[in-house]
């Protein structure tokens, strides 16, 4: 998939380049969309199973082998539900919100490198692209909050905005530190730079900051304030039902994997195999999909930690998370950024 356009050019010789590019774009979008939503759907099941095991229960285990088709059954159920629109909702904002939330989340996946050869695009500004899109994503939550004509939704939307503003800056500083070391914004370059030494070692502080802010950005426990079930019913998703709700739900869960994939890409060596200097076997035992295997394994482990946190921790209060974001995490992230810059300049790193 390294270059979908040239691949299509090979199987459709003679077509003009613009047609190849268009087909590639459409095909690529469909693939990204399918992969993201499948992962999101699967994760709704995985989360329920992990949550159940954490609470000494079995979880869903009836549909399909060990319950693995549960998410399909849930999806079918949601599709068959009535799509209720609140009578006084702002039709445009309310309707648009679900698409905005889904679209930006899905598009942000494009530059994620699944392995050395498997990626949808490797634009030179990949990280910037991801950060820009993830910064726009809360727009959907705000639209939903405003358009639903529901006070719980409104509170959820406002909280989403506050959360986004306060955690965006430390997140950028944490990612910026990594970019200082690599000197490149391209996602593949960041992964290849980590051969031998994963960035979690020199960037431990940055890793912690990125993980915490990533949880907040994705709206996950302990900072799921925009949904805050026990306070705001369902936050900005309160007035959504049927498959509209299903989309928001799937996006939430695909965000778990997205944050894990970003963490893996930036700090855990991406698709690079571990200990490959001593055990070269690990680097190629599955042939062309070895990188994919390692990437999914690492991201899966990080996702497990996210779910673990989700099932374990209570929710922080609004003022508490703002305090932590502005008074602790932001100064630390700036310190980390400056420290990294000094180390890169003096030649210790990079």
């Amino acid at each position, binding site marked *: 998939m390294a270059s979908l356009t040239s691949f299509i050019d090979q199987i459709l010789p003679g077509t003009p380049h613009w047609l190849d590019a268009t087909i590639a774009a459409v095909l690529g979008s469909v693939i990204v969309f399918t992969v993201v939503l499948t992962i999101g759907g699967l994760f709704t099941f995985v989360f329920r199973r992990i949550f159940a095991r954490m609470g000494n229960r079995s979880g869903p285990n009836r549909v399909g082998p060990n319950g693995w088709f549960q998410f399909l059954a849930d999806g079918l159920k949601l599709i068959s539900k009535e799509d209720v629109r609140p009578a006084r909702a702002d039709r445009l904002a309310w309707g648009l919100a679900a698409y905005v939330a889904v679209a930006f989340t899905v598009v942000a996946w494009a530059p994620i490198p699944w392995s050395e050869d498997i990626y949808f695009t490797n634009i030179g500004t990949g990280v910037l692209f991801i950060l820009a899109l993830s910064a726009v994503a809360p727009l959907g939550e705000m639209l939903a909050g405003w358009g639903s004509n529901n006070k719980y939704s409104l509170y959820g939307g406002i909280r989403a905005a506050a959360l986004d503003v306060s955690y965006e800056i430390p997140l950028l500083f944490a990612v910026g530190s990594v970019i200082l070391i690599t000197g490149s914004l391209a996602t593949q370059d960041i992964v290849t730079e980590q051969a031998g030494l994963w960035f979690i070692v020199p960037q431990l502080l940055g890793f912690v900051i990125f993980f915490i802010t990533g949880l907040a950005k994705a709206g996950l426990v302990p900072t799921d304030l925009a949904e805050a079930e026990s306070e705001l019913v369902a936050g900005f998703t309160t007035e959504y039902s049927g498959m509209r709700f299903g989309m928001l739900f799937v996006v939430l869960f695909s965000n778990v994997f997205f944050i894990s994939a970003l963490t893996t890409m930036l700090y855990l060596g991406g698709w690079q195999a571990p200990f490959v200097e001593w055990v070269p076997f690990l680097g190629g035992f599955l042939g062309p999909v070895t990188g994919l295997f390692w990437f999914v394994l690492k991201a899966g482990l990080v996702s497990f930690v996210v779910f673990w946190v989700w099932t374990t921790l209570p*929710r922080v209060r*609004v003022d508490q998370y703002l305090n932590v974001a502005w008074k602790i995490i932001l100064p630390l992230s700036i310190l980390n950024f400056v420290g990294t810059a000094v180390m890169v300049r003096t030649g210790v790193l990079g």
Partner: protein
Amino acid sequence: MVGARDVRDQIPATFDAGRLKTVKVDDRHLMELNMGPQHPSTHGVLRLKVKLDGEIVVDVEPIIGYLHRSSEKLAENMNWVKFIPLTDRMDYLSAMHNNHGYVLAVEQLLGGPDEQVVSERAEHIRVFAAEMSRLCNHLFWMGTFMLDMGALTPLFYALRERETALGFLEELCGARLTFNYFRFGGVKFDLPDDPTYLPRVKTFLADMPSKVDEYQRLLKRNDILVGRLRGTGPLSRDEVLDWGITGPMLRASGVAHDLRKVAPYSIYKELDFDVPTATESDCYGRLVVRWAEMVQSVRIVQQVIDRIEKRDLEGLHLNPDYAGGKILRVKAKGEAYSRIEHPKGEYGCHVIGDGKLQPIRVKVRAPSFANLQVLPIMARGQKIADLIASLGSIDIVLGDVDR
């Protein structure tokens, strides 16, 4: 955020009468939010009319009555004994205590001063059932309170123990929630014939303090949780006394008041247990007090089992005067008030009879109802999340509030 600071400034830092008044702010900034009657954290069909200034709660007014089933009125049209199942459905999480309060009141009418209505054996079984029920209530409270805080898993830790305890109660009386177990003159069934019953209960009880330790290890050391609970929903000693708050909420504010000690009923006078208190006066204190009460309940049940096993207790589990069909022909005359230490606070039952088959008035002083009134005092000036925490820390059951 200017409005937010205004509210903050007008709320006295110390507890005084000023807190009883509604905080005056410019009403144009305020948003009125109807929380409930359908809301995940109102523990049933409670409606809270909340006035909000951003995230800050300016005022809150609990509106009740959505689960009103006029139980007290129904009592006037049924035989004395037939009201017992209805008490189950008031506070359905600690039904044994509701039974106990009502039965104690009626027994005051039935027995003369020198006539022993309830045998010693029945009293022991009653305390056994009541304290197991208290354990179940506190366990379930802990789980749902943690749900209010956004922590999902503690509920299942709590239910793990509660299931076992409910299993024992089921063997005792056949029900797991609405027990309908107490009768005038004793209890409906004797202890199970199964010789392994009491040993099994003892094994469970011996394990229970370590389980409480486990909860404390998991929750006390959780900085997020402690940060959320400390200073949340504060109630000073004076405030709880002024508002007639009882139960763990009273004890969490440093008042060692427990009817089992202060006005002992049943056999509590002969049992050895402590009244745990806390000085925190906030949600955290209420959590700590209830943990300690779980351990004390375990101690009480252990002593009761020892006494049942060691001593050949006299009497039957049910007074023969009230056994079988005779229970339906109970006639009582006079007026009586009983009060017991319910897991949620002081439970009082006032009965009046005129010597007929039915009471002419039954009034229940429900602890949930009395404790709920203090919610505005706890929540004013705090955040929405704190309002939920404060409400959860009261431990209400809407069946008990509305009756």
